[in-house]
């Protein structure tokens, strides 16, 4: 179960309110009428399907009804960040190693999916108390 921070509502909400909508930052061919079959097929069907850091679009379906983006690890299911449409991700596959863990996200070390905002990681709870 994900606990997802909606950047528009400015709140954490449960996964049930959201709908995943596939890979983010896809670029539609600028001139569809003159694009090749490869370009158009690539845009419609071919995906990175990344095992690891994955940028994806979500819809806050029963909330604000807005699309936003999320950076998430598709193997551990850790959510690194959510950000508004039009913004660029601050976490990428290149810089994920030196990421300072944001409070309230699923921790990679917790082993199983954490339900709720408090990850089972002591360091994060300490940070919260300070």
């Amino acid at each position, binding site marked *: 179960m994900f606990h997802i921070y909606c950047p528009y509502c400015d709140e954490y909400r449960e996964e049930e309110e959201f709908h995943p909508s596939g890979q983010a930052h896809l670029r539609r061919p600028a001139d569809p009428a003159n694009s090749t*079959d490869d370009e158009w*097929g690539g845009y419609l069907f071919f995906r990175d399907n990344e095992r690891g850091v994955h940028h994806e679009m979500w819809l806050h379906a029963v909330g604000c009804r807005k699309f936003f983006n999320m950076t*998430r690890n598709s193997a551990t299911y850790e959510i690194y960040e959510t950000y508004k449409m039009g913004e660029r991700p601050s976490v990428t596959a290149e810089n994920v190693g030196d990421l300072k863990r944001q409070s309230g996200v699923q921790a990679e070390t917790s082993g199983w999916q954490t339900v709720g905002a408090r990850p089972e990681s002591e360091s994060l709870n300490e940070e919260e108390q300070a």
Partner: protein
Amino acid sequence: MKRYSGFGLVKHAMSHHENWERQWRNPTPKKQYDVIIVGGGGHGLATAYYLAKEHGITNVAVIEKGWLGGGNTARNTTIVRSNYLWDEAAAMFEHSMKLWEGLSQDLNYNVMFSQRGVLNLGHTLQDMRDIQRRVNANRLNGVDGEVLDAKGVQDIVPILDCSKNARYPVMGASWQPRGGVARHDAVAWGFARAADAMGVDLLQNTEVTGFKIRDGRVYGVHTNRGDIEAKTVGCVAAGNSGVLAKMAGFKLPLESHPLQALVSEPLKPVLDTVVMSNHVHGYVSQSDKGDLVIGAGIDGYVGYGQRGSYTTVEHTLQAIVEMFPIFSRVRMNRQWGGVVDTCPDASPIISATPVKGMFFNCGWGTGGFKATPGSGHIFAATLAKNEAHPIAAPFSIDRFNTGALVDEHGAAGVAH
């Protein structure tokens, strides 16, 4: 390989079943093979078996990073049917169904294939129209099928709630009597044992870490147990196909999703067929052991975690209890997830790739188990002849650029 028989069973009973021979060897990798198959699940093992049996190519290695049949082969709901709408898909799944019907004898291994019939329920007028269209298409393609009304369904499954009071009343169903279930582990083990007996090397705990590619041609793989060479490489890695494609330097039109299933505590026999409903989205059968085997939908996000969301479990059980109020107090024993590689058109990819000598068999999504023998059979022919088998040809990767999709979404009663 000693053949299994009733007589052998009695003989081994005399020695307290302590002297059965190992079902397959655990060989050291050779430096070179004619064909390498990446992925030791049902489809990969079936491919190796048919390569050896039909094409006489026995210098084959199956490379598996875990253990044989430990991925989706061991994680599905074991349903076998062939009532697909489009000619291309029906041809393939019916090809597979015919192999299923003789598989236990062919492999000398009891895969417990039980043709107990499969019902695909219709809950709306549109469902019923689609069912009629599909059954008619099936019959034209030589696939058995019948359209049943609510009473016909009730006669087959007395415990199904077919009353008008249901939230989504059952209006009828398509019925494929030749469909059924099989023992999933036995399928992998049977193919493994038969392939091994013909000289195929099954390399477990061996992970492919890269491909040796020169001038656009593959000539081997890197593994954690050293390099292995082969001029032909077939990748059958289900959810991890995209990871292999990335190593080889191209993309696939796939997304990997978690798909869950669950089983209940064992019950006395209560359900002797397979019931699937797309509309309320759940499917259920009862295993020989007595537990209800229940299938769920995929989680919509990309995930390689072999586990899914609790919400999906909840929605699935709502659907099951909606159909079978009698199950409302059954307790669930276990729940698990597999990683399925879904294609945009819900049909598989059996295809050559931009790298010469490298072939992919993937994209089976939520419905690959039923195709295990057929997929192995046509993929083996594709690898042996270096060109697509006629049944495999429409499932080329090119279709995503030409637009000739085999759009089986929903149309085939594909319960995802």
